[in-house]
């Protein structure tokens, strides 16, 4: 993930808000990652992110595009137990997801 503190202030970084949203609070150090795969439809991934996480269509679409273009996206953060629950749900929907400590 991009380290936003290295960004020179005058550079336009449209992704800053998106990455800032995924900065993790210190007591919730685990993340769920959704990975790109060749089968899942972009419209379906967007639907899942709205349906399960309650994200609005813009945020869901933005995360889906990140998965599509960059190969992966952090879709949630929290305790390890919460992330295991989210990964299980993603596997239920047929997305490929893993959990790990936030880097």
């Amino acid at each position, binding site marked *: 993930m991009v380290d936003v503190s290295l960004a020179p202030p005058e550079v336009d970084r449209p992704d800053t808000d998106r990455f800032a949203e995924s900065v993790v609070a210190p007591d919730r150090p685990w993340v769920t990652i959704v990975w790109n*795969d*060749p*089968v*899942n*439809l972009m*419209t*379906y991934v*967007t*639907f899942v992110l*709205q349906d399960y996480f309650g994200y609005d*269509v813009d945020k869901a679409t933005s995360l889906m595009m990140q998965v599509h273009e960059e190969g992966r996206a952090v879709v949630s953060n929290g305790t390890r137990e919460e992330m*295991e629950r989210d*990964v*299980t749900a993603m*596997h*239920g*929907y*047929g997305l*490929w*997801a*893993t*959990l*790990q400590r936030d880097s």
Partner: protein
Amino acid sequence: MKIRGTSGGGVRIHLDDDETEALKGWVEQLAELVAPDEAESSDPLATMVGLGADREPSGDPALQRLFPDAYLDDDEAASDFRRYTEQDLRKDKAQRAAVVIATLGERSGRKGTVTLDADQARAWLGCLNDLRLVIGTRIGVTEDDQWPDEDDPRTPVFFVYHWLTYLQGTLVDAMSPRSP
């Protein structure tokens, strides 16, 4: 094949006889593939709480894709996670397949209409996705794959895969909330 959304979040799907028979056959195969294990554990408590005997991922790439590892770099955590979650995931996928088979059986009318409420539509959506994951894995679909060469024995299965993609895509469009 046509799909219309209904008020209340359901859908009406129109399928002809061939489409219905074919889809039913594939979903029945999927149901067999994902069926939860018979109680193999010798520990009656484990069986009661739904713990699976399997700690290892399947040797079948299609099952590996349906039930992937949750931890990339920690085999023990991945095994534990699998043991606690795979059986329930299998049950959910098997139940969704059962909904598809049952609602296909209730198809009626001149246009071959399958009427689904919102929950049944979600079951179809998940089941179609599982089906495409299995078929896609088996034929080695990649991001760039469109159609194989004429002589490729996978060609008929690619037809199936692309038809299912069209069906699932049309269904998710009918179910997706409209942008404001």
